[in-house]
């Protein structure tokens, strides 16, 4: 596919397919309200109640109309949207009543993601999301654009502006692919406790929606059934087994959605990741935009030799997990191959390791966990004294977790890079080149000052790295070394 047929100096429009997505979004935003209104009307008719539409229904209808009116702006914007490259800037214009013009210098683009769902594939279009430095959210999103145009734009941005000839297209080499067997391994090694909690939270939230829709509380029915049920050991085991099977299935589906047929190709500019399940996504990772890298594994993943590698990019929103560049790595050699463009030599391989002060292991338990549990225990005591046992178990769990966290926290550093290893039930490694630091903080408290300790925070545009409870001399040295890297290199 030729990428230099499209003249990006000429403003490009959205594909007509974008109209379908806008209509889809309108329906998606409005359907719960419409469903509630329709449901209420039907139930009122079935209950032979007086046929006067409640004020509530009028209110909901009003909100629905407001949503439609708000989306009218998006419909208008479809016709006025233009995207082009003017010199060294990407320019996006649109809007009727409030005209918008977004100008992004091409050298501030940090990543370009392409997303295709089934409709995109049928119509040879895709969505582009362009992220730039200094912003929490996706800077520019183009809902549906011709796929050739999208690939051309992605290639142009990756090569920083200039038009490329066929000779200059960087050679792409595939370095990783996830097969079905790998997906199974990832699903087995997933954090099932977290998945189980997600299922519980999701189920509870749906109970609330059902209550709003049909007018009575489904959780009361469930409570009634639970009270009537007679619990036996076999019954409990059956329940646990069903819960485990559901959890494993949900874990499997989540892993499939995230990693199915994931491929990574490398060129001299960076990596390109692509994965497919319900939709195809492509993410471009430009090396010089990477702020820091982390890789983690739990006990099962360690046995299977799997790590989850995460690249922290400039301007990333930590709460928007869909923006994160996170990939499973199935062997150690590949892990170092992916890390090496950022930092070729890990400090842990040739420098001394350091730990935090022993008080880090018990202080949080003593100052926060214990008082809170004591307060709650006092309240619970008057309700049901036996429930205090659960709180005691929680206290023991948290105390052990904090102690394990202290035991596992280690760091190494050389003249350019710091590596931190931490974790409780798993292990996470974080690698940070000092020249990526934006600013530094040194924090002390009365206790830390008495013990001649300090906590160092290294702030990057991707995430903040905290090194707690280290000697004040070490803290000062780390800070000075990181500043030398930022200011003199």
């Amino acid at each position, binding site marked *: 596919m030729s990428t230099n047929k499209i003249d990006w100096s000429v403003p490009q429009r959205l594909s007509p397919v974008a109209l379908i997505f806008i209509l889809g979004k309108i329906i998606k935003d409005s359907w719960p309200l419409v469903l509630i209104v329709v449901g209420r009307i039907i139930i009122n008719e079935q209950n032979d109640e007086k046929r006067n539409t409640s004020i509530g229904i009028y209110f909901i209808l009003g909100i629905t109309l407001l949503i439609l009116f708000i989306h009218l702006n998006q419909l208008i914007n479809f016709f006025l949207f233009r995207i082009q490259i003017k010199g060294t800037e990407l320019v996006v214009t649109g809007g009727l009543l409030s005209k918008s013009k977004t100008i992004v210098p091409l050298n501030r683009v940090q990543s370009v993601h392409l997303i295709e769902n089934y409709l995109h594939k049928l119509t040879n279009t895709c969505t582009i999301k362009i992220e730039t430095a200094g912003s929490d959210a996706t800077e520019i999103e183009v809902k549906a654009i011709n796929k050739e145009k999208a690939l051309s734009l992605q290639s142009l941005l990756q090569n920083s502006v200039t038009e490329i000839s066929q000779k200059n297209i960087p050679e792409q080499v595939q370095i990783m692919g996830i097969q079905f067997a790998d997906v199974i391994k990832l699903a087995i090694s997933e954090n099932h406790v977290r998945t189980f909690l997600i299922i519980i939270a999701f189920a509870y939230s749906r109970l609330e929606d059902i209550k709003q829709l049909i007018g009575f509380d489904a959780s009361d029915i469930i409570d009634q059934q639970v009270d009537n049920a007679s619990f036996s050991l076999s019954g409990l085991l059956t329940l646990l087994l069903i819960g485990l099977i559901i959890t494993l299935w949900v874990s499997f589906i989540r892993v499939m959605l995230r990693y199915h047929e994931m491929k990574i190709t490398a060129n001299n500019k960076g990596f390109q990741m692509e994965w497919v399940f319900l939709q195809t996504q492509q993410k471009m990772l430009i090396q010089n935009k990477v702020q820091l890298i982390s890789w983690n594994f739990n006990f099962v993943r360690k046995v299977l030799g799997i790590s989850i590698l995460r690249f922290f990019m400039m301007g990333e929103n930590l709460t928007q997990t869909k923006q994160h560049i996170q990939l499973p790595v199935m062997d150690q050699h590949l892990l170092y191959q992916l890390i090496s463009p950022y930092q070729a030599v890990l400090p842990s391989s040739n420098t001394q390791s350091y730990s935090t002060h022993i008080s880090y292991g018990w202080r949080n338990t003593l100052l926060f966990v214990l008082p809170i549990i004591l307060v709650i225990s006092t309240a619970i005591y008057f309700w049901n004294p036996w429930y205090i046992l659960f709180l005691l178990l929680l206290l023991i769990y948290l105390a052990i977790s904090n102690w394990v966290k202290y035991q596992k926290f280690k760091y190494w550093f050389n003249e350019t890079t710091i590596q931190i290893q931490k974790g409780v039930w798993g292990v996470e490694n974080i690698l940070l080149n000092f020249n990526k630091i934006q*600013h530094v903080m040194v924090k002390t*408290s009365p206790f830390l000052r008495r013990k001649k300790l300090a906590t160092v925070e290294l702030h990057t545009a991707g995430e903040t790295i905290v090194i707690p409870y280290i000697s004040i001399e070490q803290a000062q040295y780390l800070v*000075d070394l990181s500043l*030398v890297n930022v200011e003199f290199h």
Partner: protein
Amino acid sequence: MKYENSFIPHSEIPQYAKVNLEPIEAAYKKVVYINWAIVYTVLFTVLLALFILIKPLQMSWLITIVAIVFLLLISISIASVEIGFKNKAWALRDKDIQFKKGWLFQTTHIIPFVKVQHCELVSSPIGRKYGLASIRINTAASNDIDISIKGLKQETAEQLKAFIMEKIETYEHQ
């Protein structure tokens, strides 16, 4: 490929801890007290209105507890201003700026100029009355963090802002 990992002695690199920090203007203490006075006056008014208008709240033990908590908050605020004020200081180096603040929990910020994206001068009505202003510094990592030096003289703040903006331009052209 040969990798080197030479040790850099601490004595050979600039040390931020050895820099003499300059305290902020003494007049800023008055600004802080006035701000707190406004906050507590509003809070007192709200509490008074609640106790007068809502009869179930008119219990002597509740009023006593609220009064004690209120006085405690005022005492803590006064202590934090008096003790914390002397910790507020700043220093300018050729390549970065640092400032320190805090009472019980002290924080030292160091921001290299090469990472500063924007710098703005901020002054409140009460600060302007005393000829004071603040500098707020933005980096790519400062979204949730307040990086500002408060309690500077207006002229000092303006000079500092101009200096920082000049540094930003110098680094942008490099």
